């Protein structure tokens, strides 16, 4: 018995603990975020609520959290400070690609109520070593101010998901920190920190059902995003339409020099890369003379980001390896746009829609990016009764082209005032059909 006690006693000083003053300060900077948000599914505007975590980073009340916690669909954001005071906040900007969002505390209210809060410091995620102890702080399942401990399992994890953040694309332009610190729903947006309280990541997601496989956005990425969101409220990226693949083990197949090149898995239809004549199966060797090394999955985000961070409209000179020889292609970048367009619910019709985006139109081989996709209909309401179903693309309303959501809103407003039959033209798999919404 004594032996065991001694043993434990010896161990304690060696185990990482988070009792530093820096960590205390971090704890005081972590907040719980309650969000009330609107959704447009099922033909109606519905209000839902969600809970997440966040960390205060500046004296002027900037809080970093996840894009899947606070999005532009949030209608009310309430922050619970460490002092257990609740304060309102507003969205500064979000970026689903990195799953980061920035909100700002209502500073007038803070002043009026004479509230105070601590701010946390961002650490350097590049210096993290696998095996290093880290701590996650957040609100798992609503349990406020929960601290869990783990290690950095992998400091450069590739994790891409085409509809990972509220149906939006994520993960193409950054790698993630993988940790075994327990991350549960509600931890989202909370910090992953070192024992001295430096924020090295923002906890974002975990594998459901897996044992402690969780992912955080590195602070290095966060630093860049914060700067751009504060300045512009949005992140602008460039796009050329290359879908990368790993070259791992295929260098021999393609007869390439070692440690070079990235496989172009496919090229988006109609994209600048496609127009320039790039094709799936080509190997990208360099961008504007800078060599590219994309043999492994974790190397791909960096290359993608290299293209994305160039100004929109700039010409890139891409060196391509095809059929045993190199060739150069000039590609003009365009602005990166999500596949997911703006959403709206036309409640009188019981119809939820999403604007067709350029990306969506290309993916579906549509001639134009006009129209809006039906994402839900409310049973018993005119849209559902007419026979319209999810996935139909509404092209015309009362013979007017739906070039924007505004046009549909005008038609809907007119219907709300004086209901009368509405003629709707749709397309589904390139098949044109007509429907009538009857009052």
């Amino acid at each position: 018995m004594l032996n065991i006690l001694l043993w434990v006693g010896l161990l304690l000083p060696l185990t990482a603990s988070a009792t530093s003053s820096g960590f205390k300060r971090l704890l005081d900077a972590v907040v719980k975020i309650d969000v009330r948000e609107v959704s447009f599914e099922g033909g109606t505007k519905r209000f839902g609520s969600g809970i997440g975590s966040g960390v205060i980073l500046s004296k002027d009340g900037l809080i970093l959290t996840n894009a899947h916690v606070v999005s532009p669909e949030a209608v009310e954001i309430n922050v619970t400070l460490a002092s257990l005071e609740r304060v309102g906040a507003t969205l500064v900007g979000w970026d689903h690609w990195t799953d980061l969002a920035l909100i700002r505390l209502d500073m007038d209210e803070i002043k009026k109520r004479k509230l105070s809060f601590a701010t946390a410091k961002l650490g350097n995620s590049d210096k993290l070593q696998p095996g290093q102890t880290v701590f996650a702080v957040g609100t798992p399942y609503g349990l406020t101010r929960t601290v869990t401990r783990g290690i950095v399992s992998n400091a450069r994890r590739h994790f891409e998901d085409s509809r990972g953040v509220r149906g939006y694309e994520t993960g193409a332009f950054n790698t993630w920190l993988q940790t075994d610190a327990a991350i549960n729903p509600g931890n989202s947006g909370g910090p992953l920190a070192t024992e001295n309280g430096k924020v090295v990541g923002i906890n974002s997601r975990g594998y459901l059902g897996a044992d402690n496989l969780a992912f955080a956005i590195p602070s290095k990425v966060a630093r860049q995003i914060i700067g751009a969101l504060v300045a512009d409220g949005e992140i602008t990226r460039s796009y050329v339409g290359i879908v990368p693949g790993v070259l791992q083990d295929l260098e021999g197949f393609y007869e390439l020099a070692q440690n070079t090149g990235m496989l172009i898995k496919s090229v988006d239809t109609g994209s600048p890369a496609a127009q320039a004549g790039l094709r799936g199966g080509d190997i990208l060797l360099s961008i504007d003379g800078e060599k590219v090394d994309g043999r492994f999955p974790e190397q791909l985000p960096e290359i993608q980001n290299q293209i994305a961070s160039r100004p929109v409209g700039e010409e890139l000179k891409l060196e391509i390896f095809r059929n045993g020889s190199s060739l150069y292609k000039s590609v003009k970048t365009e602005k990166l746009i999500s596949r997911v367009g703006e959403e709206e619910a036309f409640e009188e019709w019981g119809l939820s829609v999403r604007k067709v985006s350029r990306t969506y139109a290309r993916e579906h081989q549509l001639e134009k990016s006009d129209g809006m996709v039906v994402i839900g209909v409310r049973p018993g309401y005119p849209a559902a009764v007419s026979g319209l179903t999810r996935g139909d693309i509404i092209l015309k309303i009362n013979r007017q082209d739906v070039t924007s959501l505004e046009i549909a809103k005008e038609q809907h407003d007119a219907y709300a005032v004086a209901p009368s039959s509405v003629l709707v033209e749709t397309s589904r798999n390139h098949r044109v059909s007509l429907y009538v919404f009857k009052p």
Partner: protein
Amino acid sequence: MTRRSLVLIVFTLTALISRGGSALADMWQDRVKTVVAVEFFTETELDRRSTNTFGVVIDDMGTIIFPSQAIGARISPKQLEDFRIYFPGEPTTQEYSATYLGRDEFTGWEFIRVDEEAARARLVPITAYEEAPEPIVTEEIWGLGLKKKTEDFLPYFMSSRVSVLQSLPQRTAIAAQEVSGLGLPVYDQEGRFVGLSIGGFGRSFLQYTARIRGGVPVVLVNPDESAVVILAQEILPYLNRIPTNIEGRPIVWLGTNGLQPLDPVVARYLELENQAGLVISEILEDSPAEKMGLLARDVILSLDGDPLPVLKPDHVVITYFQREMSRRNPGDKVVLGILRDTERQQIEVVLEDAPLTPREAERRYFDSLGMTIREFTYIDGVQRRLDVADHHGVIAHFVKANAPASTAGLLTDDLIDEIDGVKVASYEEAAAILEGIAQDKERGEFVLLVKRAGDTAVLRVKLK
């Protein structure tokens, strides 16, 4: 009593029993002669498959029809061989060869003709029996089915009552249960010819299991028997449509794609009472429809002055319109009444013979590469939403599993645009290049550029 008279008496007695047994039994015995079992073989890249189906005799020349579903859509008539027939209930060791005559697009029938005179002489065409008037609901009708080859295609009696009559768009009787073998004739109580049971509907059920408590919808399809009878009036007038070539040419072409029916609410909104309309989704390039100025989104309202009929379900009007087209001939003029936005117009279109179909296209299999290429056809361009005018390339019609082409990632129906960096200008050229590659035993690899669902990919096919 002498021995001779005894024999005589026995003979008369049996004759009496048989006649007195039932008139239906006699009719059954006779009408078995109108049907045969048909067998043919399909030559594919890897094997030779046999198909058994049932046929109906339509004339004294030994001509037999069977539904075209028996032949897969991807099969070229050139792959079909060794047609033969068997008499129901006779040993299958005795087969009679037949010649494939082709498919008729309008009726959807495949035609064959029995070669041997002796076999022809034993067949009785359905035209030997009187045409029945349209049956009434509740009327009892009967037919026959044939068992499998292992049971010598033994004929069996089937019977049911007419449950409902519909125009789909052909006049059709649906029986309460299966009433004959698929594609085989149905008769009334007087032995008159009611119609052919062609196709059928799957029957929907819910399947409950211990694990799936809510029930899973399942559709049960009887592949050998049918309860759906296309009436004689829809069959007898078209028995003379015996193809003159195995491709079934001419095939009439208008060039409207993706016809969609108007539902009754829309029709009413557009002030079209008691008639149907068809929205044209797409007008195909260089088609008769395009030449005469039809536009996508025009609504077809009438054909040669007759409004499109209201048929149920709504989509039946599509088949109605397509049948009306395919019963015509290339060169025929049709006048289409259309609605364009809010304006009604009449447009005259001269029908043409359809462009080459994938069924007719040239194909060639390269065993060492593990792929079959097929000539690019007009419809391939339409399906891939490519500009048909600058069409080229060949289609990967078949890709053999675990062979060089499939290992490189080639998929069935990929469009091959380039071979070894050379743009494919024609099928012949592609075949010649691939032949060269297949012959060259020294060659280590070749490169294909393929298009698939809007994407383009470079595939390196390793031969060694």
